[in-house]
Every structure is written in C-alpha cells, then in structure tokens.
C-alpha cells in the first residue's frame, strides 16, 4: 500500500475520532447540565457556591499536572454556569499554569519525578526524567518535538510566542498538556517568571473573554 495514502487515511480516521469525541463531550455536558437543573435559587446558592469553589480548586490542581485533561473541567464549568463564571475560570487557568511553571522551575527535578511517580503518573514522570539531562534549550526543543531544526530555532528565538501557541494547541496533551508544557518551560530555566506570566495571561484569555464579552455559548 502507498505509504502516503496510509498516513492520509490515518489522519482522516484520527480527525473523525476527534470530531466524534467533541460531539459526544458536548452532548455529555448538555445532559449533565439538564440533569443538574442548574437554576441558581436562594435555596441552592450556597451549595452552588461550594461546588464552584471545589471545582475551581480541582481545576487549578488538575490542570497543573502533566497529561491530565484539566481544561475539560473549565469548559464544563463554563457550560454549566455560563458567562458569569468566565472571570473565575480565566484567573484559575492563569494560576494553574503559573503553579505548573513554578513547580518546574523551583522543585528539584529528582523530587518532581518521585512525586509524579508517587501519583502513579508514569508518563508525566517519564517526561520529567527525559527532560532532566537536557540543557535549557533542548528542554524547550522537547516541546517542539517532531519539528524541523528551523522550527526549533524559531521556537527558541520567539520562545514566549512558541509557549503561547503550545499551550493553546488542540491535542497538546500528547506532549504533556498545559500543565506538562508549563512544567517543562519552568524546568528549562530559560523563561523569566514575569514574561511567562504575561504570556500566559494573554494566551489563555480568548475562550473566557469570548464567553464573557461575545456571548459564546458552550452547550
């Protein structure tokens, strides 16, 4: 069989699987929203408040972990509670990304690997172990896995833009998800905290801002 035809077929199949997954996820969120009947009344407001606080803490923690699809919690909260929750989701996303970056930057790499192993997060631990012996530039190049040398060079030169794109790229869970990317960015030691903060503050803003100001409906 023609190899290029095989890869095209694989691409189409993966694309269709992704579309099916998105449709099923949207349908699931819709069902959950209906089942919860989330009309906020005086009688349930306190319970809703506690749920939102718990959800936000879980969201920050999970999103900061490599290979954990925490973003879905944020999308689910936006779908369930509507535009009013967008500012909280935005702030929580930035906090989560900065948490992952800070862990990568300041936690000793051996301790981080052991911690992830303790959580039975073998893939995440392997990611950290793979990054450990590399130089800062090479760790960033990990994020651009599979790209040409020229792309890696451009990525290094414009590393903050590369970071923003990597965090926003659909399917980035293959290379660690938002948490994994930020952890490796911290590990690399070539990103300044202030510029990372500004980059992330801009990079994660499109969806919450669209929900808040343009009335994007996630249901």
């Amino acid at each position, binding site marked *: 069989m023609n190899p290029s035809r095989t890869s095209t077929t694989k691409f189409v199949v993966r694309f269709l699987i992704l579309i099916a997954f998105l449709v099923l996820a949207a349908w699931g969120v819709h069902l959950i929203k209906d089942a919860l009947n989330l009309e906020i009344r005086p009688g349930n407001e306190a319970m809703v408040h506690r749920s939102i606080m718990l959800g936000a803490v879980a969201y920050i923690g999970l999103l900061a972990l490599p290979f954990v699809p925490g973003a879905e919690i944020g999308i689910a909260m936006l779908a369930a509670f509507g535009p009013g929750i967008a500012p909280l989701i*935005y702030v929580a996303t930035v906090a989560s990304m900065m948490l992952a970056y800070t862990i990568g930057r300041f936690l000793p790499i051996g301790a981080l690997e052991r911690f992830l192993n303790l959580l039975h997060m073998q893939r995440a631990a392997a990611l950290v172990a793979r990054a450990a012996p590399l130089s800062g530039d090479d760790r960033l190049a990990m994020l651009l896995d599979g790209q040409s040398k020229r792309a890696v060079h451009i990525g290094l030169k414009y590393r903050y833009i590369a970071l923003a794109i990597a965090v926003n790229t659909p399917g980035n869970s293959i290379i660690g998800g938002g948490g994994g990317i930020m952890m490796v960015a911290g590990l690399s030691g070539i990103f300044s905290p202030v510029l990372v903060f500004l980059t992330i503050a801009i990079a994660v803003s499109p969806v919450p801002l669209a929900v808040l100001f343009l009335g994007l409906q996630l249901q």
Partner: protein
Amino acid sequence: MSQILQVAAIAMATVGTGAATMTVMKPEIADLAVPEGDWSAGEILDGQSYFIEGVDLDSGTVLLDELVFRDGTFQSVNCQTYCDFGWSDYQTKLVDDVIHFTATTRCPDAPHTVVWYGTVTEDQMQLAGTWTTRRWYWNHQIRFSAEGSTTPPIDPNVTG
C-alpha cells in the same frame, strides 16, 4: 533572591493580578432602582401582612411569600427560610392615596441583598424586587415581580 522568595513573589503576583482581574472583568449588577421621592420611615403599613404570588422574571419560577410589617420594620417569611435576614426598616411615601414602600434587606451570613419596592392600594399590593448575590468571583441576580393582598390564600402553606 532565594528561591522561596521568588516563589512567594510569583504567588503574590498571581493572586494580586488575579484579584485585580476579577474586579475588572466581573460585571457589576445594580440592585433594583427605587424611584426617588419624599420617603420617610415606615409606619403606615405596620400591623399588616400581605400574601403575595409572584414570578421570577428570568426563569418563570412561581414565588409565594408572606410580607409582614410591624413597628416600622419589614420581613419576608419566604426569605427568612434561606437566611436569617431578621427585621429590616422600611420606608414609605404617599402619592395620590397610593402607599409606596421600599425596603432593603441584607443577609448577615452571606452576600445577599434583597431590594423591595411596592405599592399598596386599599388592600392590594403590587411588588417588584431583586435578590442579588455578590460573591468575589461573580454577581448573580434574581429579578421578580408579584402581587397580592391581605387576604390569606386558600392553601395556607407558604412555600418558595
């Protein structure tokens, strides 16, 4: 700067900027606008109870309540089941034999503010109000209107 200080600085910057962002992004919701006028401390309605039936203007949920006036203060029996609002001062003004009243009640245990504005003609009451909850991360409001009278309903159970 030691690593701990750097971590603390990142944490403080994240929390501080987050708080500022929440303040800017969180849409403000105004309480019910009560018409201005010659309001004075309420006493005209003292001793009265009004049984009202209303509706949440956004969801259509039916609201039943009993509003009690005594000693210049006001209480919603229904609201009392959700929070101990207690008795709140009310104000009145008289315009063409129509009594206008307003009251603002605040929950001491949670950030709920309820603003009431109504008119009373003979024993009939027309009412509008807002229940606004202002959490640090969002504001939520229930707008309602209702009408009622001093005549108790046939079903004496007042529910919300």
